[in-house]
């Protein structure tokens, strides 16, 4: 066996051994962070931790309609929203990061955003991502209704970026 071949094998073996270690660490990485985190930069999608791979492939198919809607909103270009901001009412300035979780709004104490607002119902509305990663607002049968822009919601409706959602005296919007 020539010296060269053996040297190549020697270094090759070490490389393969370390490659294994690196692959193993990569497997651990997903465990350390607990859940799958979608890369925002590359995919232009909000982080959606609970989604499994199968749904993410569906998610990839989704962007075109989403872009269309956001284009209709006309404010933020192509990017998906990453936070929810309260713009009017007692909670003005509050932000909630959108991480794939359902956000509930209302006066009930277990709501994600507890509204201190006499015109809000205890379980007023919820905001959740659908399977394509589009954020949807749904009125939960509130007394005074939920308004997106100027129209009262009757069905779950996708939220364009920057469109004000009004609940009683409170207004919130999704931002990039």
């Amino acid at each position, binding site marked *: *066996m020539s010296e060269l*071949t*053996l*040297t190549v*094998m*020697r*270094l*090759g*073996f*070490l490389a*393969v*051994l*370390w490659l*294994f*270690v690196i*692959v*193993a*660490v990569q*497997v*651990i990485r*997903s*465990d350390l962070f*607990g*859940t799958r985190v979608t890369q925002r930069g590359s995919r232009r999608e909000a982080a959606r*931790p*609970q*989604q*499994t*791979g199968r*749904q993410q492939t569906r998610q990839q198919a989704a962007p075109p309609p989403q872009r269309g809607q956001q284009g209709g909103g006309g404010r933020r270009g192509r990017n998906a929203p990453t936070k929810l901001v309260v713009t009017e009412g007692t909670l003005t300035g509050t932000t909630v990061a959108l*991480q794939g*979780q*359902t*956000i*509930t709004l209302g006066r009930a104490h*277990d*709501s*994600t955003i507890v509204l201190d607002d006499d015109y809000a119902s205890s379980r007023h509305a*919820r905001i*959740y*991502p*659908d399977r394509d990663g*589009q954020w*949807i607002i*749904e009125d*939960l049968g509130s007394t005074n209704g939920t308004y997106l822009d100027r129209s009262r919601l009757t*069905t*779950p*409706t*996708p939220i364009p970026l920057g469109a004000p959602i009004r609940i009683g005296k409170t207004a919130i919007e999704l931002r990039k």
Partner: protein
Amino acid sequence: MSSTTNSPTHHTSTIGAIGAPSRRNTELALLVFAVAIPVFAYANVGLAIDGQVPAGLLSYGLGLGLLAGVAHLVVRKFAPYADPLLLPLATLLNGLGLVCIWRLDQSKLLQQIHVAGGKATNQLIYTAMGIALFVAVLIFLKDHRTLQRYTYISMVAALFLLLLPLVPGLGADVYGAKIWISIGSFTIQPGEFAKIVLAVFFAGYLMVKRDALALASRRFMGMYLPRGRDLGPILVVWAISILILVFETDLGTSLLFFGMFVIMLYVATERTSWIVFGLLMSVAGAIGVASFEPHIKVRVQAWLDPMREYTLSRTPGVPGIHSDQLQQALWAFGSGGTLGTGWGQGHSELIRFAANSDFILATFGEELGLAGVMAILLIYGLIVERGVRTALAARDPFGKLLAIGLSGAFALQVFVVAGGVMGLIPLTGMTMPFLAYGGSSVIANWALIGVLIRISDTARRPAPAPAANPDAEMTQVVRPS
């Protein structure tokens, strides 16, 4: 799990790793990798020594692959949510150990002194037995919590196993350390099995007693001092480990036994003071015993000055047993350098006795160099990390303590052996888990991995879905298109 997370009645921002997929395919892919690496190494050894691909390559590769495949299928069937890394990591170490043992079998010098020769085949059989025990653990141990019932039986069994080598006629004195028993032509190291049984006992015991040990304490200089009577258990374990040190003259078993207890005590009570006490007690014990026990004394001297031992072993007419092993091992590490000499091109036969068991790491050090040994130590580290991670994720305190105890024992064993061979601590009679030649070690460690996989399966299994979920599924309103 994923479709149920958007339940409308809960806000689900706290969902963590529980919903992770089973990751069995990840395990399979890594397993293929873990079998391919030793096969590569095997071919490399043959090419380096004989200039041709060894004849046994196919059968060896198939053998290891078959064992790994069986283990994987059993995990898939009986522990579908188990940690995906434990099995591939252990398989890789076992495979590399087999290659290294086979490589030492090729050495003429080692064959002459009957240290090597046909050992790789034996090791493959031991591996098969180890995998068989692994499979048995997974099939018959449906829930690790059943082990909790056997807390005190485990204590008796562990003491029995630890004391077995002292039984006259049964115990065998192998190069000074009395940690072996011989039945017919077989020799067994009961301490390897004792560590698993002991972990069960400690976990069961500490789970019940930890509140008393943690809460009843006084604060002194930033440390919680336990009450005098709470020192009882640690003193008893310490005394037993000292007795092991005195009568079996093996520092490794003693250290493993006591260290595991201290680790589990710390985890159970969250009191740093136990670690301080443990370290003080083990240091005091080791120094005390080393001052009068001749075998330990020799080991300590060889550790402090290996070169002197080397010279004495070469000088005729010097009384006492002197071994040049440690110095040879250190030279092996040194001659390996950063990248090593390459498989089959070192001179580890110079270590002579125990070259393929206690000192196998020196061969890795010489032929794979620092880079290789670091990778191997990292793989051990990853196994321990997975064990600790399993403990973190486990939902029941018994499982937590058991997983910590087993991975702590594994880590201690690696530390004790690697430290001994590298001259960091005095040499002991223990062997590198999975790498070293020896039936007891391989079989016991596969059982250990089996228990860890069982616990990790329970820990990572998604929590049973709340009853409201089917309704939640119904109310997922169709989005307007």
